[in-house]
């Protein structure tokens, strides 16, 4: 399931809902991305006052659904969830949640890792950070492309 929303989410509740009634699930892996306060250019902590996440409505949902389908084709999963927020967020706030459930521990870990890597390079979101020097668009990192490449062609 995918959700693109301005509202916050409750990771514990989302995991609980995914596991409910399915006792074949052996494990669930989750990843929660948070707003950092580090200035991406200078590396200085407590520099980011807030962040605004812009996205491309329509394409975002399409891309997230495609990524979710890829993960389910590649691993034997009992559930997948991607929630991504947009709008204005403060340091410490949750941005993204990915949860995967599987009979097998490693499938849960790998598919969750895969979903995050793909989301980082394919989901059309852009971060504008408010720093003391004004608004700065965050640059994409080459390391995110490299991270996605490790999963091969999909």
């Amino acid at each position: 399931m995918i959700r693109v929303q301005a509202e916050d989410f409750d990771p514990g509740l989302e995991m609980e809902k995914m596991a409910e009634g399915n006792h074949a699930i052996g494990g669930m892996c989750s990843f929660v991305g948070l707003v950092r306060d580090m200035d991406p250019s200078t590396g200085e902590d407590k520099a980011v006052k807030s962040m605004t996440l812009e996205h491309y409505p329509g394409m975002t949902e399409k891309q997230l659904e495609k990524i979710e389908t890829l993960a389910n084709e590649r691993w034997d999963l009992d559930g997948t969830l991607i929630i991504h927020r947009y709008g204005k967020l403060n340091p410490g706030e949750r941005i993204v949640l990915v949860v995967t459930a599987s009979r097998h521990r490693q499938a849960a870990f790998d598919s969750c890792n895969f979903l995050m890597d793909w989301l980082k390079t394919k989901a059309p979101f852009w971060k504008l950070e408010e720093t003391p020097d004004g608004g700065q668009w965050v640059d994409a990192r080459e390391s995110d492309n490299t991270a996605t490449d490790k999963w091969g062609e999909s």
Partner: protein
Amino acid sequence: MKVLYFAWLRSKTGVAEELLTPPESVGTVQELIDWLIERGAGYADAFADLSLVRVAVNQEYVDFSHPVKVGDEVAMFPPVTGG
């Protein structure tokens, strides 16, 4: 043709979304960009370094040689930074 700009491409062009009717000679994404650059300094600035520009036609990633036609939704944006 609907053309959308996101993040700093939007800031530089000064436009979020516009309905355009390019001449018939514009048949690909690259040709659309070349035509946009001639429309003004904001566009020229936005498209100064194409290695930083990603394109989606009808909400699917494409490369610059991809065809564009009447009725398409063409989006231009920097590499994504969500997650």
